[in-house]
């Protein structure tokens, strides 16, 4: 069970990294507009679709 002394701090560090990523995303403006990006992704360009095939 002594592995807990290693695993739990690791979990905390990972949570901290996730939190840092979240804050980075917010400061970059990714949460300013919560409606449009979903719509934007749904409407891919024809050309882009063709290029991928």
């Amino acid at each position, binding site marked *: *069970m002594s592995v*807990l*002394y290693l695993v*739990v701090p690791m979990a*905390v560090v990972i*949570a901290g990294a*996730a*939190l840092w990523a*979240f*804050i980075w995303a*917010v*400061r970059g*403006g990714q*949460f*300013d*507009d*919560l*409606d*449009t990006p979903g*719509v*934007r992704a*749904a*409407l891919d*360009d*024809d050309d882009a679709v063709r290029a991928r095939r």
Partner: protein
Amino acid sequence: MVSEALQAGAVTPAASPSAAVSCAHCGLSTPASAAIVSALSAEPGQRSGLETGEAPAFCCNGCKAAWEIIHGCGLERYYRVRDAGGKPARGTGRRYEEMDDPTFASLYCRPAPGGLLSTELFLEGVHCAACVWLVEKLPAVVPGVVESRLDLRRGLVRVTWDGGTTTLSDAARALDRMGYVPHPGREASAREARRREDRAGIVRLGVAGACAGNVMLLAFALYSGTFDAMEPGYREFFRWLSMGIGVLSLAWPGRVFFKGAIAALRTRTPHLDLPIAVGLLAGAVWGVLNTIRGTGEIYFDSLSVLVFVLLVGRWVQRRQQRWASDSMELLYSLTPSSARVVSREGSTWSEARETPVEALAAGDVVEVRAGDSVPVDGVVLEGESSVDQSLLTGESRPIGVRHGERVAAGSVNLAGRLVVRVEAAGRETRVGRLMELVEDATRRRAPIVRLTDRIAGHFVVVMLALAAATALAWAWINPAEAIDHATALLIVTCPCALGLATPLAVTVAIGRAARAGVLIKGGDALQQLAMPGTMLLDKTGTLTRGAMTMVRWEGDRGLMPMVAAIESRSAHPVARALVAGCGSAGGNADGVEATETTGGGMVGQVGGVEVAIGSCAFVRARAVVEPEWVRDSERSMVADGLTPVLVAGNGRVEAVAGVGDPVRDDAGAMIAALRRAGWRVGILSGDHPSIVRAVAGALGIEPGLTWGGATPEEKVRIVREQKSRGRVVMVGDGVNDAAALASADVGIAVHGGAEASLAAADVYLREPGLGAIVSLTHAARGTMRVIYRNLAASLFYNVGAAALAMAGVITPLIAAILMPASSLTVLGSSLRQRRFGGS
């Protein structure tokens, strides 16, 4: 007229069902004969509502222009991805030259990386996903535009362009032609500040959520360990970790509560942050001590969850209020911000150049077309017209202006083109000075002590007293546990549900109100509207429609078609009212020859009869015979606040028409409903006292609550006077009401109001009519009922928790269960609110 009527009649598909085509842009069914056909044709394989090779047809030129620009740039996909059924494109065809002016650039545009420029524009008519796609394809339409990002909810587009290859006006014209009319986004710096605030709020929310989740995980382990002997080493380890995360949560996102509490102490006003901060602080201090000592309870799980839940409540309310104020800002931006500047070229004037209003200076000359609003205070150099100053002064009757006379910014030019020399622009105008009055009134408005804050003031005292009593009692029973129990009490009574009670109820109410067409900027307005007080209504544009209408006709009705035929040659508001009023009488009048005579009337020949229509002086100068009843009906119309218009046929006065600004149909019912609810209803108008008295009489408003001829400054004074008798709600639409709106407890701006009134008001009615005010008071009462219910529920939990803590039986586990339970009760109660307006 006739051809228009024919077309209008034929547009309905029923008239010629066999030959109907649907508009290639908006899908509106249009008869083939009336449709406009494009020179371009659809390319094979493209489906834009028509078959391959077939020439597209349109319902109007707006749609044709929009289709051609979309088609010409290879963006036909728009028609496949958009929602079924578009809207006819209503571009304005403006040139947007003012957007290229250096003054505009310095006010609205900012440099972007790479030597580019960027600005934000509000767009009208953005409604679905396809709009996002189309607007963001702007770089394909206008070379030189680098990026175009649309915020669907706000209708706000950020355009980035290369100043070397294109101009902003090109982009604006393209958007306009696609049917999205652009407006400069004002107050960019305020918007930026709010965006930063919003981001900080989301960061706090995220950090608080992450902390709460992680501490809860550790707490699970610790709680399981209580029943199932846990190795002391692990227990210590988990307690120290909980403390670390808990302290982080309190010190970072939880700091807002401590800040609020300190501000409340400094200003000596009760605030909900005070009991919250006391609970958080007590829990934190005792938890840290217990962690270091290695015995006793730690409460970091409850504290972190508390911080998170309270922040969620605040964020939700803020988001809803932000939406309402964003919508009002959009309306605010719709008001024109450009003027048409001309310069002298010999005996005539040069072509007009659109210029931002901010760039105008005294001495410039501007052109004001019929239907435009006057952008500056100035003197008329050329032209003759009548102007509607109702938004500015409250006066409902249009005023004639001619060479050498003054016009004021904010008035609307009704009839003909005017050339005006600028005397004052921007803040120097009368409107600008009125705005300073509004700002002053807003500053002087005392903040309202919210219901929860008032309760919180008592709450914190009771909480501390109970904690002290617990500590004393337990010091006598078992001194070792005294502080433990007192701390437990402070934590479990921490007003978590109390903090959610108001935000949730208010958020739900504001959301429902917005769907019913009422925008509410803040929750305070709802609290103020729940209890009856004095409601002061503006007359012109609020109680009345703000447009001239023919209300009465006395005398020979046979003349009505002739009057309609003659008056249809004029654009004067009285003439339009007569056309609308007489046109419905039916009948035909052909072979009309009409001449408009300035100075109050028109003369025309219809079927050999010479008809004179106009003011009393105008017609009396042309009519010889006048029956006796004419004087009487003229007097009675003046007494009723109407403008009498005489009609003479072949030199004999035959009829008298009464033209006025009639009271809205629903005004009487609204006032009666408000009275029943206990409101004192009054009229506060800038219009002529005799007209105001007439309206007050018709609506049964007592003379003691009727004020006419009030200047904006007097309106503020009267509102302040009435405030000494209780809360005052001001309802208005004009610039002249704005300061009064700002100084009242609640200011309500009605549909179609001036931008100044929008800036000053707390509530905006998006639909015409006054019925929404009654629904609003009902909704406010309903919301307050929900708030009371929520408060009762949360206090009930707190009393129970306090009793348990005093008895010394509370454990961190019970505290961790009680707190979400009370919050969920409040959440459920808030969502169970009835529909907006239901009583």
